[in-house]
């Protein structure tokens, strides 16, 4: 391969960091330690990782309800993420948001979003803002297959095309929208076929192939940066876990899930790295141990952080909140 070892290994590290973070979150949730809803990205890690590897620090993303992977790949601090899942004051949102609303505007993450399709109009605004400011930043908008049937999707892609906004739309087609099979609710074979409606390039790729994701995203991001307009990329993957932690997933067969476990991106990538002798078993082991330590540290940080006082609920709505009758 024509990439540096560092780069190739960093992809592995990021994917594993996401995986391990979420496996811990799942465990903690099942132990009753985390409240709310948690949507796992397990099996989809190559998408966030590959796309973010092609973005600059100063670029923006909008995320979804299934956003841990995007946040980690964009450089989010897993300590503050974990603390947010626990609802602690040291969390990204001071305990006000939880899993579905994690954001770090300072690293360009304009928020996970509990509204399906809700991030797309926000991405359009970021794109408009960039165009006005004439910086050469890029926005990546992540959204699910289910989101591709919302009005927000259509309005956003048309808008982006009309103003040639520097946006890359990444459709994470994990074949399910909650209990619904995508193919039963969606009127196209490939969601990228819908790019025709917006006169923009539409590409379907194997979302479990980290290099395919990276290279396709890089090309689209470069085009966006060079004022070449937006692109719609559909990354096909599979939602290995339930829609949320605790979902009994009665609507699908285990055999289907098992098939996709075979094809999950980290296993594939690890094997490729090993097969092509880019990395050794020992190095793999070391990476994983380091990551495990980081995750443990994050959990410890979160558990040791203090709970907010109830009255904190009354701050943070407005910048200028003098005189509000909360």
């Amino acid at each position, binding site marked *: 391969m024509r990439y540096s070892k560092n780069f190739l290994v960093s992809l592995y590290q990021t994917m594993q960091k996401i995986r391990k973070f979420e496996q811990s979150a799942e465990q903690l949730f099942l132990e009753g330690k985390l*409240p709310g809803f948690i949507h796992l990205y397990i099996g989809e890690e190559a998408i966030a990782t590959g796309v973010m590897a092609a973005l600059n620090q100063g670029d923006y993303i909008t995320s979804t309800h299934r956003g841990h992977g995007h946040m980690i790949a964009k450089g989010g601090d897993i300590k503050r993420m974990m603390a947010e899942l626990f609802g602690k004051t040291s969390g990204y949102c001071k305990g*006000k948001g939880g899993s579905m609303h994690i954001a770090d505007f300072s690293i360009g993450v304009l928020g996970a979003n*509990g509204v399906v399709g809700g991030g797309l109009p926000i991405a359009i605004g970021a794109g408009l803002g960039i165009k006005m400011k004439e910086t050469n930043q890029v926005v990546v908008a992540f959204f699910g297959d289910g989101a591709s049937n919302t*009005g*927000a999707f259509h309005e956003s892609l048309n808008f982006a095309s009309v103003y040639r906004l520097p946006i890359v739309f990444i459709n994470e087609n994990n074949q399910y929208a909650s209990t619904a099979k995508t193919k039963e*609710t*969606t009127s196209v074979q490939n969601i990228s076929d819908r790019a025709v409606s917006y006169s923009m390039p539409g590409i379907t790729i194997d979302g479990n192939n980290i290099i395919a994701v990276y290279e396709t995203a890089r090309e689209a991001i470069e085009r966006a940066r060079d004022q070449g307009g937006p692109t719609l990329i559909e990354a096909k993957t599979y939602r290995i876990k339930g829609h949320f932690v605790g979902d009994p997933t009665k609507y699908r067969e285990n055999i289907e899930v098992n098939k996709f476990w075979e094809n999950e991106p980290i296993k594939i990538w690890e094997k490729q790295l090993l097969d092509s002798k880019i990395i050794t078993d020992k190095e793999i082991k070391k990476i994983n141990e380091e990551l495990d330590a980081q995750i443990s540290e994050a959990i410890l940080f979160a558990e040791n952080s203090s709970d907010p006082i*109830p009255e904190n609920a009354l701050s943070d709505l407005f910048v200028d909140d003098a005189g509000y009758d909360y």
Partner: protein
Amino acid sequence: MRNISYAEALGEAILEEMERDDTIFTYGEDVAKQGGIFGAYKSLLGKFPNRIFDTPISEEVIYGSALGAALVGMRPVVEFHFADFLFTGIQSITLQIEKIRYMTGGQGKLHLVLRGPDGVSNSAAAQHSESIETIFMHIPGIKIIIPSTPYDIKGLMKTALRSDDPIICFEHKSLYATKGEVPEEEYFIPLGKAEIKKEGKDITVVSMSRMVHESLRAAEELEKEGISLEVIDLRSLVPWDKETVIRSVQKTNRLIVAHETWRRAGWGAEIASTIQEEAFDFLDAPIARIGARNVPMPFNALMQNFVTPNKENIIIEAKKLLGR
């Protein structure tokens, strides 16, 4: 009498009416495969495979299609996933369903029901915890039911399914699993009739949904201190039963209106304003309103519980009203 859950009672109402009337059909996100986001349709699973189906995530069409289906003679029952997501398709309700009969001079019958969960529960946070019934009370054109018990939801839903007017039903997430007595025999509860869930003499408490139970809990505690609350459950908000509230206030001379939605410009303000207009001389103290603090719902449970009203708020207001 048998005890069944709120979700079961709701499911029974729909099932019975679907068996009777084959123009009723129902759809929404995650209803057919899962039986509804909070399991309200479990009893329908497998029963009417063609009359229950899952949809794409397209709320403007989900709500708006109810109107079209009603106009061609069907009785659609649409589940909105969370009350919050009424916003993603709300023009279909506020600009279409609520207006088309009026705008066309009374043509057509909009026999349709929109129903689904609302309310605060388990750190669902700001985009999954809202109660927005006040909006539909403000904008004329849809009737609103908000049942608090298995008995009430069955009786009100059966009435709704035979009504020729559009009706929206809000079901608090925390109520689905609660149980209560529901007779085997068929019964109907009319809209616009409040129920006095507990008689009392010192203070009238008007509420709906989860807050009825909080009010009853508050009443129980206050009873020990010699304070007697009369707890009225409005059950429907459009129309709401002004007469029952006025009669009660004429007796108690004090009123608390308690709801979970934001206090500011919530429906409690409508009740309070109306009662001071129509029973001014009977009031011995200002009408107290209880509602959520005016912020989005926070995730952390401590903050969530601080923002969300409960029986403690009712106890505090009650004591204040009596100068204790």
